Structure formats: structure tokens, C-alpha cells
């Protein structure tokens, strides 16, 4: 059923796979196949990534000069608002779960599909509906509240498309809830015989933890948006201090979701890193249980730290104390993971394929990003650093340097599985390095800008900050190129890439034991699992008894 790729063999794509069991637009738009839905998501999020990226380009262009000379202030405010909304809700939140998670989780656990294929498709349609609301809002003039919709600004003081955008967030939120719900039920109920919890790949654990956050956290965002909409439309008073309401209540409701949201965004990426590091060191992940439990710990602790976004907003000193302490606790599991991944390299057999390069980039940049989180979690330094470019640098380090790198690592790692073809290795390595260099130049100067005091969301700034801003924009240009190149060669590889075979990386994991691309039903017969995760000895043993692939 599988064959390890050997360079001498002439490989061909399997005759029957999930792409060609059915043809036609409707067979894609009405599919229940988790793999097709994953590809639908891949197209959508890539498209919106470039929309958000274009906004980022505009921001950096404007910030080349200290004066507000490229666009009007209102326009600039709309650009950064939509940059945040599009990148967070339409790219980061669904990126790994909806593409790689959808594609791989059933296969990794030995199932034929997710528990609820129709709800999976519904998730995608909700994503498109939410995204359409954002597009309508953009076409209609945009929204300029910032992605955080702070009241009373968003309820009483702007006359842009808050309601439309709010509806978009609401709908996209339910897309996320249903994806998480699907994953949880699938992982609990549809594992193949022998696939116990502690034999699951760490990618599955990471997505499971993220799914818990999706399911429990997103509805609170939904209700916060509903209340903003009601306040805005009818003036009900729930956030209006002149009527007895408290604008800080919105902050609590909003951040109760939006903090776990950042863990929703990063945990699946961490799952990818576990898989990539293991495969390219030919070793089981060091401390499997520690990494698995760390994912769950991040998910649980992540619910108790939301007010660290609100230290200077008038919290009582004692609440601030509690949240700061809990924030320090939530930082520890991430540190544990970094050390476990580093230890996985020890006495491994390391190769430097593109996914591994991205994984190394992740380890370096996420470590910096995560440590700067400690700067912000510590109350005293947060006073000086909050709402400055230090925050912008911090979250871009963890989200872009961390999550986006992990996403690219995952796309490159599983590209042969999803498409049956390899991408050009030399070019992909160059793109990875370009991305890394561009990233450092874009975002590292922003830490310095932040400590100097340059506030975020600023259209214009004092002239002494210009040099660092120019450096940042220069880096952004390089970064943009680094992201464009993969689009080109990945698209090229779909038709002209070298045929990959079922296991080009000689990796463990059930997904590498089936053909590339997989059959619609994934497995012709449900496997019985009798080995641990990352069991390279089992893989060796299996390779020696090759069985021909189907089709």
C-alpha cells in the first residue's frame, strides 16, 4: 500500500485519487470530502492573505515618511483596521486548522472523514459569507475602529461600516466554532483500532487543544459583537457611561475570546513544527507527553489571562496582579515546547529540507516573540510598552514569525501528500531564507521604536523615528517577495513538479502510508494501529516489506 520514494524509481501519480473521482464545479462546491474542503479553504485563505498583505504594504508605504502624506487619516485608519481583521479572522484563525487540519486529521487518526462532513462544508460557506461581509464593508468605504472594536468609539463615534463588519466577524466566528466542534468529535470518536490518545501525532493534540478554544471562546466574541451592534443601532446603553453602562465591560467580553484566539492561532502551528522536526531529524519528539500536555495546558491557562490586554485601562491593581501572575504561568508551556523541540535534534539525523528551514525560523522567531510577551505580561514594563510598536512587534513575531512560518512549513511538508508532486527544492529554500531575513528587518526595529515610545496605529510620527521606520519598510518589501515566490512555484509544481510518491520524506504517520494524493475514502481498509507515534523502527521494518500501491 505504500512505497518509500527511491530516486531511481520512476513514479507516477495514482490513477484514482480524490481529485478525479468526480468532476465539475458542483462536485467541489457540494463536496463532503474533507480533503476537497481543505483545498477550498487553501485557495480562500491564500487569496485573503494577499488582500491583508496588500493592506500591510500600504501601511508600510505610508510610514516611510513621518508626515501623513500618502493617504488621508481616515483611509489609513481603515487600512490598518482591515489589515487586522482580514489577517486574523480570514487568515490566521483558519490557516492551519481549516487547511492542514481538515486534510490530515482524519487520515492521521485512521478515519475516512471527519465526523460531520456537511458541517465541515458549512464551515467553509460561513467563512465565505463572513469574508463577503468584509468585502462589502471594504467596497462600501471600510471600517476604522481597529480590529478591537473598542467601545464607545465603535458604538457612538464612527460612522463607518461597523455593523457590516461585525456581522462578518459573527459569521466567520461560527465557521471557526463548527470546525473546532468537528475536530473534537472526530478525535474522540473516530480513531482507528489501536490508535490510543498517546499514539496520536502531536499535530492532532495541538489541533485538539485549539479546537477546545475555538468552541468555548468564539461564542463570547459573538455576543460581544451582538451587544455592540445593538448599542450602535438602538443605543441600548449597555456600554454607555452616560446611561450607566461600562465601556470596560466590552473590553472584558472582547478579550475573553481574543486572548484564547491567539492560542487558537498558534497551537496548530506548533503541531506542525512537532511533525516537521521529528521527520527531519528522523527521531521521535523528545518528551511526547510533555508536548501533548503543554498544548492542553496552553489551552486551559489561555482562558484565564485575558485582562493582561487591559492593565492600564482602569482595572483594580489587585486584578492586574492576578492576571499578570497567570500570564507568567501560561508562558511556561510554550517554553517547554521550544526546549523539547531543540532536544529532539540531539542525536538525530538532521536534514535541511525547506520545511525544516521554516521550522528553524519558527523556533528562533517564536522564542523572541514569546519572550517579549513576558516583557508585556510584567506589569511595570507593560505600562511603558503597551499600545506602542513593541506590542506590534511582539504579536507579529509570534504570529508571522511563528504561525505563518509554521503554516509554510506545513504546506511544504504536506504538499506532496496533497498534490502528489514536489515543489522545486532550491527555489523553496531561497524563498525561506528571504522570508526570514525580510521578517527580521521588518519587525525587529519595531521593538526599538516601541521602547522609544512610538505609539501604534499612528498615521504620522515624530521625525526622529523615521530611520527605524524606513528600515522596517525595506524589510517589508523583502518579506513580500519572500511570500510571493512560493505562490509561484507551488502553483507551477501542481502541473510540472516531480511526482512525489506516497512517502517522499520517509516519515512516520498514517498519512504517509497511503497514496499521494489520497483516495476519497483515504483508506481502502481501516488500519489497525500497533505502534507509537514517531516510531521510526516500525517504519524501517515496514519499508523492508514493500507492498505495491493502488491505482
Amino acid at each position: 500500500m505504500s512505497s518509500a520514494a527511491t530516486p531511481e524509481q520512476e513514479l507516477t501519480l495514482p490513477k484514482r485519487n480524490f481529485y478525479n473521482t468526480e468532476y465539475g464545479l458542483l462536485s467541489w462546491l457540494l463536496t463532503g470530502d474533507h480533503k476537497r474542503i481543505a483545498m477550498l479553504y487553501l485557495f480562500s485563505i491564500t487569496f485573503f492573505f494577499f488582500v491583508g498583505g496588500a493592506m500591510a504594504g500600504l501601511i508600510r508605504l505610508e510610514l516611510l515618511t513621518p508626515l501623513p502624506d500618502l493617504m488621508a487619516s481616515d483611509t489609513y485608519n481603515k487600512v490598518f483596521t482591515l489589515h487586522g481583521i482580514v489577517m486574523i479572522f480570514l487568515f490566521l484563525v483558519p490557516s492551519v486548522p481549516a487547511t492542514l487540519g481538515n486534510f490530515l486529521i482524519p487520515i492521521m487518526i485512521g478515519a475516512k472523514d471527519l465526523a460531520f462532513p456537511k458541517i465541515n462544508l458549512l464551515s467553509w460557506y460561513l467563512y465565505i459569507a463572513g469574508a463577503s461581509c468584509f468585502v462589502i464593508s471594504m467596497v462600501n468605504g471600510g471600517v476604522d475602529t481597529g480590529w478591537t472594536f473598542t467601545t464607545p468609539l465603535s458604538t457612538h463615534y464612527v460612522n463607518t461600516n461597523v455593523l457590516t463588519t461585525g456581522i462578518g466577524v459573527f459569521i466567520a466566528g461560527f465557521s471557526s466554532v463548527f470546525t473546532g466542534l468537528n475536530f473534537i468529535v472526530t478525535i474522540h470518536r473516530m480513531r482507528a483500532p489501536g490508535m490510543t490518545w498517546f499514539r496520536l501525532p502531536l499535530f492532532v493534540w495541538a489541533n485538539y487543544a485549539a479546537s477546545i478554544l475555538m468552541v468555548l471562546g468564539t461564542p463570547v466574541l459573538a455576543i460581544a459583537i451582538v451587544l455592540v451592534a445593538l448599542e450602535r443601532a438602538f443605543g441600548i446603553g449597555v456600554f454607555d457611561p452616560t446611561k450607566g453602562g461600562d465601556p470596560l465591560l466590552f473590553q472584558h467580553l472582547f478579550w475573553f475570546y481574543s486572548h484564547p484566539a491567539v492560542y487558537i492561532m498558534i497551537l496548530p502551528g506548533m503541531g506542525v513544527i512537532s511533525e516537521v522536526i521529528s521527520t527531519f531529524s528522523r527521531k521521535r519528539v523528545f518528551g511526547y507527553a510533555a508536548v501533548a500536555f503543554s498544548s492542553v495546558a496552553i489551552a486551559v491557562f489561555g482562558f484565564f489571562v485575558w485582562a493582561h490586554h487591559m492593565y492600564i485601562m482602569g482595572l483594580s491593581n489587585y486584578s492586574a496582579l492576578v492576571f499578570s501572575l497567570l500570564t507568567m504561568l501560561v508562558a511556561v508551556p510554550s517554553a517547554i515546547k521550544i526546549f523539547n523541540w531543540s532536544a529532539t535534534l540531539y542525536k538525530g539525523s538532521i536534514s535541511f529540507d525547506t520545511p525544516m528551514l521554516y521550522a528553524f525560523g519558527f523556533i528562533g522567531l517564536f522564542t523572541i516573540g514569546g519572550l517579549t510577551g513576558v516583557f508585556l505580561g510584567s506589569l511595570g514594563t507593560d505600562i511603558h510598552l503597551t499600545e506602542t510598536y513593541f506590542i506590534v512587534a511582539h504579536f507579529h513575531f509570534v504570529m508571522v514569525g511563528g504561525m505563518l512560518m509554521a503554516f509554510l512549513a506545513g504546506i511544504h511538508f504536506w504538499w506532496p501528500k496533497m498534490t502528489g508532486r514536489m515543489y522545486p527544492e532550491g527555489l523553496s529554500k531561497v524563498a525561506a531564507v528571504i522570508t526570514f531575513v525580510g521578517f527580521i528587518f521588518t519587525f525587529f526595529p519595531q521593538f526599538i521604536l516601541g521602547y522609544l515610545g512610538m505609539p501604534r496605529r499612528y498615521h504620522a510620527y515624530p521625525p526622529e523615528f523615521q530611520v527605524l521606520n524606513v528600515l522596517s519598510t525595506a524589510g517589508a518589501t523583502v518579506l513580500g517577495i519572500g511570500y510571493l515566490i512560493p505562490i509561484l512555484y507551488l502553483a507551477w509544481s501542481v502541473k510540472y513538479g516531480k511526482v512525489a510518491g506516497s512517502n517522499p520524506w520517509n516519515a512516520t504517520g498514517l498519512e504517509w502510508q497511503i497514496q499521494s494524493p489520497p483516495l476519497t475514502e483515504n483508506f481502502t481498509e481501516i488500519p489497525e494501529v500497533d505502534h507509537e507515534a514517531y516510531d521510526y523502527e516500525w517504519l524501517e521494518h515496514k519499508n523492508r516489506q514493500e507492498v505495491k500501491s493502488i491505482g
Partner: protein
Amino acid sequence: MSHISPVLWQFLEKWLANSSLFPAEASTIAPYTDALYFFLILISLIGLVIVALLVGTFSVLYNKRRHPVAVQIEGSTLLEATWTIIPLGLFLIAFVWGALLYFRIYNPPPNAMNIYIVGKQWMWKAEHPGGQHEINALHIPIGRPIQLTLISQDVFHSFSIPAFRVKREAIPGRYTTVWFQATKVGSYHLFCTQYCGTAHSAMIGEIIVQTPEDYQAWLASSVSGASLAQNGERLFATLSCNACHNANPDSRGPSLANVYGSKLQLVTGGSVQVDDGYLRDAILNPSMHVTAGYAPIMPTYQGQISEEGIISLVEYIKTLDSNYRVQQTLNTTEIQNQKQAPATAPGTTVKP
């Protein structure tokens, strides 16, 4: 900071500030913030170097060509414990240090000079007790603790002085405070650091720190009208506060002499410390702050008075240190009182 030689610190700080990669340290608290910042940079660097060394060394030593066969290692509880406990310990140090710093910044000393700041889209208004008003600027003397009482007229704003390492949100609906003591004469950036709409990035200004003599000169030259307390006295009369809050034994409202800073008994049975925020709330939501022994008949002034007006009233009430002082107010405003309609009685419809 006391552990580092002051000379070395001064040299380091000067070099850093001149490098334009680091803001000037212009307040008493700035060196403390910087010290914690340097500690955090240090542990971050060490952490990053450790990770980089591990990854780098292992990548070289265990390169596929050099080390073709991997050794399967399950894990090590000892290592897990080590790299759980050490980071946790370091983060907890950062927590304790940061918390101490935070309490320092948000707990003003008792002798701090109070200045009111009202933020609105898109400007900062500073109200000095002596009646000086500034827009997008704040003159302060060096060497004195200054407390800022902040409030917003519309949306969230945030008053940020990077050179002092302090920042505080100005919230619509209640006062927030922050304090600092400037240590260097000069002019420093003031930023609004909470996104507040179109001209958020134009809501900037200057903090001008002067020597005490220059500050006195500035104070004298910029008074154009009444002090805040005087203005408050005027409002006290025009808004008919003294109809009930007079020192007469049968007055409908409690006398406000010495009320500021006292512990007040409420009808609900509890007691409350009277500060600026309490006074403001009592003016806007009087029924929820009824003093023991009085009826809830005070009308609300929500919508009838601006934040500056409330600030003036609060400043005035702070100066009421005796019934005689209250009487003085009555005497000078009796004529105005007689001309006005009778004070509102309970049950009268008042627009909420």
C-alpha cells in the same frame, strides 16, 4: 539600580539616550523601568542564545551526513523539570519586580500636586488648580511629585509620556490617576496611545519640565481667569447646589465642609472614602450615593455639566474646610439664589 555604580549607570544612560535607540530618562521612575527592562532583555538574550546554541550545535553535529542513524530517545523527566522550573522561576521574578514597579507608578505619594487632564477627540486639555489651561501641553516643575487625574469626554484615550515611562488611559465615565516626578528640564513627547479615531496620531503634545523659578513665572503669566476652585464656586451657585448643600441645620443636603478625604456613612449602611471619583459620581448619580440621614432627593446633573465643570466643582469642594467657608459662598451668591426658581422637588420630572 542601587546595585549598579551610579557613575556607570549615568554613562550608560547618556550613551543610550544619545543613540536615539533609547528614550531619555526624565523621571524618578524611569531608571526603575529601565532596570527591569534590561533584566528582561538579559534573560531573553540568554534564553535565545541557549536555544540558538542548542539548535545550531545539534544541526552541525547531527547533520544527516555526519550522523546517519538517529538514536531514539523518549524523554527525560529531569530535563523537563529543569526547563519548566527555571523559566517559571525567571518569569516569576519578572512578575514580582513588575508588580512592585506597577504599584509604584499607580500609587501617588500623598503630597503630590494634582493636575486634571481631560482628553477628547482630538486634544488634551490640562487644567491646573490655579486656573491655567493648556491644550496639548503640560508645564510642570522639576523635582515635585505630580499626580494627573485623567478623564475622557468621549472615547478611550491614553496619556503617554515615554520619557517618564508612564502611561494611563483616560476613560469616559470615571477618573484614573497616574503620578510622576520629573528629573530633567526639557521638553518631552506626549502621545495619545489608545486609538481614538481620525486624528489619533495628531493628539500629541509636549510635556515641558521647568525649573521651579521658570515654572512660577509661567504660572503667573498664563492665568487668564479664575482658578479652578473659584470657577467651581461660581458653578456651585449657578447650579443651585447651595440650595441644599448649605451649612444650615435644617438643610436638605449634607454640608460639604471637610467632606473631601473623609469617610462617609451611606444610607445603605456601608461607608466610602470620599475622593475625586466619588464626588464626580455623586454629582452625576446622586441616588446611589446617599449620605446616611438624608433623603435621595438630589437631582442628577448628567448632561448639564461638562467634565471641566465637574473638575471645577471637585476642586472647589476640596477647599471647603469649614462651615464658615460654605457660608461665604452663600453670602456672595444669595442674590443669584433669590432670582432663581425654587430648587427641584422630589417627583418632578427631570430628563434622565
